[in-house]
């Protein structure tokens, strides 16, 4: 599986994504600067966590207008896999690659802690290595992860099996405890928790490995 990690000026989980991909795939991903106008030939594009352009206004809003995002959209339109983690998820909703929006946490504070998630949907390129109903623990680290969408959208996401991860104890007020969702074509996943921070037992767990393994099995 060939992967690219998009680097916005204030991405700060780009190295973490790179290290996790190296650990899981045995090869280094392409690190693609936000001002690039072309994506290398890859199977997976990762939008990492961080603060993209400072995110003083709406998180991910400026990043969604960056040059490289046009290419990411084209990649997604062609059915290419895109994984947006944390700020990456925010960029995906701002880019309309995923529905809904991520608002300020209901508690109005940044929250960093491990959270238990239920795998709601193992029928995807990202989650086939998990069982439906399985509990996994990933850390969250965000101030704006409160997922909102209108009821019709939420019903549709649930009806189409596009809610992939749900919080067992909602840390941010997200509608229907949603932690991660798929696009209509199921090739784009956005989630607030960080699977790339749980690929090594010494750092608090290995529950994220199956997500990368699923992608490798599907895309290689």
């Amino acid at each position, binding site marked *: 599986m060939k992967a690219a990690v998009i680097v916005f000026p204030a991405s*700060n989980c780009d*190295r*973490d994504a790179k290290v996790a991909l190296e650990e899981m795939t045995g090869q280094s991903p392409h690190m693609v600067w936000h001002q690039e106008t072309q994506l290398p030939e890859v199977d997976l594009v990762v939008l990492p966590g961080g603060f993209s352009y400072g995110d003083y206004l709406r998180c991910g809003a400026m990043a969604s207008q960056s040059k490289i995002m046009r290419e990411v959209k084209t990649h997604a339109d062609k059915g290419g896999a895109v994984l947006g983690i944390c700020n990456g998820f925010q960029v995906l909703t701002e880019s309309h690659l995923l529905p809904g929006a991520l608002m300020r946490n209901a508690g109005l504070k*940044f929250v*960093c802690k491990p959270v238990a998630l239920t795998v709601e949907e193992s029928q995807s390129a990202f989650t086939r290595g998990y069982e439906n109903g399985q509990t996994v623990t990933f850390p969250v*680290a965000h101030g704006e992860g409160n997922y909102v969408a209108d009821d019709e959208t939420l019903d549709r996401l649930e009806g189409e099996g596009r809610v992939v991860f749900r919080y067992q104890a909602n840390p941010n007020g997200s509608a229907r405890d949603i932690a991660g969702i798929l696009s209509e074509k199921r090739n784009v996943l956005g989630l607030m928790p960080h699977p790339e*921070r749980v690929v090594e037992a010494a*750092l608090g767990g290995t529950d994220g490995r199956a997500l990368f393994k699923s992608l490798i099995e599907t895309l290689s």
Partner: protein
Amino acid sequence: MIEITPTIVAEHGLSPDEYERIKTLLGRSPNIVELGVFSVMWSEHCSYKSTRAHLRKLPTKAPWVIQGPGENAGVIDIGDGDACIFKMESHNHPSFIEPYQGAATGVGGIMRDVFTMGARPVAMMNALRFGEPSHPKTRHLVAGVVSGIGGYGNCMGVPTVGGEVNFHKSYNGNILVNAMCVGLARQDKIFLSAAKGAGNPVVYFGSKTGRDGIHGATMASAEFDDASEEKRPTVQVGDPFAEKLLLEATLELMATDAIIAIQDMGAAGLTSSSAEMGDKGGSGIELNLDMVPQREANMTAYEMLLSESQERMLAVLKPGREAQAEAIFRKWELDFAVIGITTDTNRLVIKHKGEVAADMPITALSDAAPVYERPYKVREPVRGEPAYDKSCSVLASLEKILAAPDMASRRWIWEQYDHSVMNDTRQAPGGDAAVVRVHGTKKALAITTDVTPRYCKADPFEGGKQAVAEACRNLNAVGATPLAATDNLNFGNPQKPEIMGEIVAGIDGIGEACRALDFPIVSGNCSLYNETNGEGILPTPAIGGVGLLKDSTRMATIAFKREGDVVILIGETRGHLGQSIYLREIEDKEEGAAPPVDLAAEKKHGAFVRGLIEQGRVDTCHDLSDGGLLVAIAEMALPKGIGACVGQASIAEALPFWFGEDQARYLIAAPFAEAEKIVAEARAAVIPVAELGKTGGADIVIDSKDRIAVAKLRAAHEGWFPDFMKAEL
């Protein structure tokens, strides 16, 4: 030009004597721009004029010290060509006036100190002191400081991995916000600030210069009064996005060989960075202010020189490398300008709009800054063993202590900090020391911040020793070898002999402990004048300690991990209740002598415990400090909900045994067979050792009769902070 009157001199925080000295050094009267420059360079904050004579007594050298005090941060050798660069610095005065921005820019400033030297910051710590919880401003200040630290550090993508928090009425009008940054570099890529050689371009990069923060350093060098909140415009505003760009761009420039010297613009901005670079390099510097990127129109030379706008750097490049550097800063969309040149005149010459706005010998700003041997009076330490009420219940007291403001869980705070970004955090907040792996290796750094201000108040000398000893203990307790420390000396007004006495005795105590424990001070910061309306803070010399684990797979954490482990106490228990948390929280008494610190015992016990962890024989360890033995046992039981049955040893009286704060002690837990060997080895080494009982069950049981559920203790321990802060939002 404005005429210099005695009033203007006084408004610049300069004494009449100091003004006369400036005139002598210049051979004429200064103009207003020069007066402004002298006022910041000679401020307590920049010149250390009250403490310098005493700071010289601190040990700063060891074979593993690469760079001691005097640069932006200290540098130590951690093997394999790697260096650890670190420093702690205060942002107390701005944080009281504007807590969010004050704390945020404190974090930004200390990060710049570390990456200016070539290091990528890998961990942040913070030592915070607030007023009593019932004070009307305390919640607001806690909320603002914590979100300011998080807002800046989280955006930077550097994990904030720990720290300490105290509440005490002496901080009601002067909170303390001490931030520590730890970075990693290769030993052959360390950057210093000496601007050697003439004719080299001086370049400015980062954010634009505005009018913010003018005279911040002078503000930090005076006592507060009720009008201080009117000083809000002197608090700078942080922009972590700009700092993140500055970090990446600076490290990218450092990967080339274009830099001769580099210095961040902190307190007193352009002035102190250029003067310090010229001073250390033995050269002169000529700046043209017209070239400085400016955020506001019509700024005067005075304003530009004294601005403390954040996220700015100054560097001296090799000639001809300007374009290469500029390309890097353009990529990161930062301002870049050549604003001057180094000279061989040893003078700092400032040009503005075609005129010379200031012309001063650089040594007049630095070396000739006054150094005061301020008169001091070291108070007699508080002595005596206070009486206590023997009828108090041990377990009811334990529950109350675990929910006390100084002892309750700090989860409410550290869950607002990203502590796992960078994917190397081996121990997050909540243990004795944070542990952060050196990326791509098995090695790890252990980091802690420590001081017990109430001990320092009762006995500044023993308190200074204790701060260092506890820092070492926290590092030993995770299995790290203590290597070096940074100190952040927070005190009141040094012009009062009794406060100066606290400073002198505190530094002496720190020095004695650092020498005994091979733990040199490699960087630091002083924050004086922490007084409001004449009332000083508790003396608070915070120590930031760094240690090394050669193999981070062999590490201890505080959590009990198995049922049936033997709980072993290392170190002597005499039941010292003076200045204890127990007395303060249960009997409302701040009395008695501070616990004496036996540095030989600290060294011996620390090495013994660390050895067990390094050998992979012990994975559960906790140092004993605030609250004493039973509090430590409870803290070990809480993480995994594994209780313990323990009994008294060595002394007969229950309360002093369980809650005394004798020093040089550790608790470890190990399976029976291993425990037997450990006890035998300790006895053979003449180290006091006692088997207190075994882990297991869901309760803490003492002397086989009294019990309390760990779940009940957890509710008390976790509940206080969120309950307290609920009223804020």
